[in-house]
């Protein structure tokens, strides 16, 4: 049995420890905000935070999350209490189809937590693992830059502490 923290709640998984974390979160814990895009760690649609770091979970065995803190888009913020990046996403009209955006936001949130004053190059580098087929890149970049400009830091562990 594998136990980990999911958005602040302690949860346990009894199935195959090689199951990718993405499928455990989606199919067993029924949190559907994190998406399946490639199954090979190439597109970033499945990005979550593992102890605050952005991780592609479609290739991460759930066993690797044992005793760690997993944060999904649902734990980052919600429509009533938006993370600053989510507010920026709405303000910049970022999403088109929207499918990749949970992963984009999680990757961006880890960057902003690490580098609150992320530069344009920092943003390019941190976000180049996340594909957007609709091509929302200029707006994703503008939204992240607007939060970086505001120097609003995000503490990836805060969600654990407050829940």
């Amino acid at each position, binding site marked *: 049995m594998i136990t980990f923290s999911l958005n602040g709640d302690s949860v346990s998984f009894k*199935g195959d420890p090689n199951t990718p974390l993405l499928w455990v979160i989606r199919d067993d814990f029924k949190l559907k905000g994190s998406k399946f895009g490639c199954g*090979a760690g190439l597109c970033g649609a499945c990005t979550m935070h593992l102890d605050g770091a952005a991780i592609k979970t479609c290739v991460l065995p759930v066993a690797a999350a044992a005793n760690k803190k997993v944060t999904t*888009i649902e734990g980052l*913020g919600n429509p009533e209490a938006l993370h600053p990046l989510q507010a920026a996403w709405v303000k910049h*009209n970022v999403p088109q*189809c*929207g*499918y990749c955006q949970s992963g984009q936001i999680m990757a961006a949130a880890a960057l902003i937590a690490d580098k609150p004053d992320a530069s344009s190059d920092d943003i390019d580098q941190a976000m180049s693992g996340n594909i957007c*087929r609709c091509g929302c890149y*200029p707006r994703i970049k503008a939204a992240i830059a607007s939060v970086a400009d505001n120097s609003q830091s995000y503490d990836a562990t805060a969600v654990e502490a407050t829940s």
Partner: protein
Amino acid sequence: MSGQSLSRRHFLKTSGMVGGGIVVAVALPGCAFNGPHPIEVTDAGFIPNAFLQIAPDNKITFYCPSDEMGQGIRTGLATIIGEELDVDPANMLVQAAGSHEDYNNPEFRVQGTGGSNAVRVFYQPLRQVGADTRALLLNAAALDLGIPSEQLLTDDGFIVAGDRRYPYGDFVDTASSLEMPVATSLKAPSNFQYIGADAPRVDALAKATGTASFGIDTDLPGMVYAVVVRPPVAGSKALKFDDSAARIAPGVLDIVAVSSGIAVVAERYWQAHQAAKKLTVDWEKRPLSSVTSTQVRQDLSAALEANDDTESSHVGDPEKAFAEADRILETDYYAPFLAHAPMEPLNATLRITENGADLWTGVQFVGAAQGVLERLTGLPRGDIKIHNQFLGGGFGRRATLSHIVEVAEIAMSIDKPVQLLWSREDDLRHGFYRPAAMMKIKAAADNEGRITAWQARRSGANITAQTMKNALPGVLPSLPTGLLNGLVGAMDYVFDNWAVDASSVEGLHETYSLPSYRVSHASVDHGLPTTFWRSVGHSYTSFAVESMMDELAEARQIDPVALRLKNLEDKPRMKNVVAQAGRLMAAMTVPEHHHLGFAAHSSFGTDVAQIAQVSVTDGNIRVHKVTCVVDCGLAVNPDIVRAQLEGAVMFALTATLYGQIDLDDGAVVQSNFHNYPILRMNESPAVDVVIINSQTPPTGIGEPGVPPLAPAVANAVYRATGQRLRDLPLKLA
């Protein structure tokens, strides 16, 4: 509507809408109709329906008839109906319409989304529904308040009487007893409040919080998961298979042969995915089984050399004009097969009970999905409900039905709700593709740059017949299979021998005023399934035409923009777009080693010019910035127009630099994003968009930004390197 008709209340209830209020419904003349307020819409091309519900608590719901795949259509159509209803689209609840013929696309006559037509075809009808409904509410308020309706105003969901404001919802009971006004006069565009203004997308918040529901997010009690192992070569049937190892794999519930392959059903997706690797299948050989990409290219060239084309259209006498020309250019351009690769892999969730069937998915072709389930399950159409979700990308890929057929075959075998999910490998290897195209352009221009003769020929597979092959079982669900096969065969025959599929040659001459031209086509189909891919034929024809325009300009030593302007005499809208873009380009200063390339193309009623700023370092092409000038008529939401151009640039740049589906022994070589790369942020250009101010009715915007990009980049690369690249994707020697 016949016996398949549902009562209005039943229909809306089963669409997930319950509660009081009025339902605004409009019906075709002569149709059985049970709604409370039938009105007759005079626009003969429109098949009207129920679009609005206004609840007593003033919750105003708009049932959007078009599928949201990122193009912003829920926002766009809510803006259009909201303008005349006088409700801010931000204050409406916008939902996907259920499946019902009243939601048919007025042009397609079936419920579906594509061809960049939704805003154009719904612009007038939805304004009328909004205006008539507002007039009805004013009449009801006049009765209830005892104030003549002429003395009442409306404002964002409220009736305004002097300094009092009353929610629309206050008057729904009275409104329910009144006759719906018809043909209410519409606002003058100068009075528009929401149309033409930048506004937030109605789906932005859901998509920024992971709460937007896509087909893949469907989760039903007792649901099981399925994957399908498909043949490496499209259309092959399984000769025999060994499922003994797969059957005993963890979680596996069943193994089912379906028409496209072998389905593995398990308690969880991951279990099905793992077990599928344990299947061994012998597949039959097909003619396609020996085809390689090299052969495709050779066959397409040979077809043009054979000079046995079918004419699509001509004007004047191009042969005579060529005979009189002092200089003729003749050049081949090539574009490969491409995959759509929407971010959400295809999926469908189907539950069949004694009461009917419910399908949760994201499709661009709701009507055909419903029809194909009618055909396969034998259930009455009215008992089949399509719960269309947000589409995680479409680009044409979600107008096909093979995954709907698969999930139906699986669900009928196992008697449980089932979710079918394709992997990325399935998506890239077993899809429907933008066909490869060889184009030979022969052109002559006089020494002032005016084109005197133009011949454009294309060889390759057609799209329409193949797409219809896939869609017809759903579009004509009651047509017997024998007749259906006959119809599809006849269509193939027609396009192979008599007529040209318009999708195959669109864009080969239309952008310019040509005094003489001939467009013709040679069909060459190797059997790889094809379908519409964002901007369809324009996606390759623009590359040939706009590269040739620069080649002509060079041959005549004329500025490329000036040459284009010389050939737009009776195309005032495009002429203005090119002129404005040309002025922007002339004023641009670029860093050393950066070069500008220009292209323009007209598609889906919209005119677009693009200027690509490019550098080439060590053989690597880098696009730094793309400036777009667009005339799409009235921009309903200018910010969404900008977003569509930005996105189209990225989508097209992926195809320009990387896009290539190869065949080896008939099988698609590419399998995931490592060998079918998609442009990433660190490679993405800045995009500037200039929207021409226009009051003419809106035209398409989802696709027209794609076609000019590849030739704009190729033209810039030529300036940077002196290499004229005539093959996509662009690769320097």
